[in-house]
């Protein structure tokens, strides 16, 4: 029963420092491993061989899934798994997965071209949100209040260098903030409401939002359980929007920042992760 944990990331931020500091309380020796210098591929490579488990904490959505795949190929347990990371990093793939399982998600249209965009504007009521399929931290997520602005905004999307970056979702704007649920294993360990701070309509913690305590009620537990049922146990930041018909799942972060939720809720999320890692290791 080893306890050596690699945190794979490009740097140690608040969350990683918490995980490193709390590790010994759970019999874990947690170390940072630079995600840009692993050169994985050889199944017998030394880079991660000495670790009993790898925690993927890359901020880069390019790196996380790729590194998880190769760490698994080298027979090292990885949290979250490559399959889960690859499902979560692609907003469309995740929505398809959840919708097929009957888990409510926002209505959306896939936009790959100006033609798609025009059709999406015709089919969905304003205000709308345009967001990249690959991306996070609220970057390029745009609130479209009217058709004139929308068409000009799409000019900028067309100017992006690669089709990969141009792939977007258009969806109805579901205002009123979101509920962020931190899941460790299969349980919700902390929740918080994220709302705009008044200077930016977006409510991502990375942008600077207002956070408040939110009661973990039965509808929240029910929808989060349904997500975990599809993804399996892991470490997730599940983002919910409230609608007139109940909650819908906006997205799931596979390497969630948890500073805002931990501070707001008063929950020691790093210790919860430490306990879970210990459980996974046996």
């Amino acid at each position: 029963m080893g306890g050596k944990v690699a945190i794979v990331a490009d740097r140690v931020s608040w969350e990683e420092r918490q995980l490193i500091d709390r590790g010994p309380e759970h019999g874990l020796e947690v170390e940072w491993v630079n995600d840009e210098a692993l050169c994985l591929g050889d199944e017998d490579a030394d880079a991660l061989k000495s670790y009993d488990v790898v925690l993927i904490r890359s901020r880069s959505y390019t790196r996380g899934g790729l590194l998880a795949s190769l760490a698994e190929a080298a027979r090292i347990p990885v949290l979250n798994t490559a399959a889960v990371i690859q499902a979560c990093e692609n907003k469309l793939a995740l929505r398809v997965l959840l919708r097929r399982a009957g888990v409510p998600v926002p209505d959306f249209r896939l936009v790959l071209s100006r033609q798609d965009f025009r059709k999406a504007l015709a089919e969905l009521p304003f205000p709308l949100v345009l967001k990249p399929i690959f991306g996070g931290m609220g970057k390029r997520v745009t609130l479209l209040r009217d058709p004139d602005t929308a068409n000009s905004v799409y000019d900028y999307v067309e100017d992006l260098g690669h089709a990969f970056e141009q792939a977007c979702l258009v969806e109805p704007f579901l205002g009123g903030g979101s509920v962020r649920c931190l899941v460790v294993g299969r349980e919700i360990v902390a929740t918080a409401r994220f709302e705009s701070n008044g200077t930016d309509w977006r409510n991502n913690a990375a942008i600077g939002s207002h956070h408040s305590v939110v009661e973990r009620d039965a509808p929240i537990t029910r929808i989060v359980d349904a997500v975990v049922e599809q993804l399996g146990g892991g470490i997730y930041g599940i983002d919910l929007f409230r609608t007139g018909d109940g909650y819908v799942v906006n997205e799931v972060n596979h390497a969630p920042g948890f500073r805002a939720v931990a501070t707001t809720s008063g929950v020691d999320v790093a210790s919860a992760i430490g306990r879970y890692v210990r459980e996974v290791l046996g």
Partner: protein
Amino acid sequence: MTQMLAGACPECETPLSTPPMIQGETMSCPECLLTLRVDEVQDGTLVLQVVEVQLRDWGQ
């Protein structure tokens, strides 16, 4: 008394002195304001590398 660590900014060569830091943590150079990551700590000396504040594919 906290033992301070010493280093120099790899960009502007400004001498730096910090409270204990671990590998992977970052700091700003007070002179050129670049973000520096601690790649190693050798006998109380920081080995620092300039890193991006943000990359285009950051998303989690």
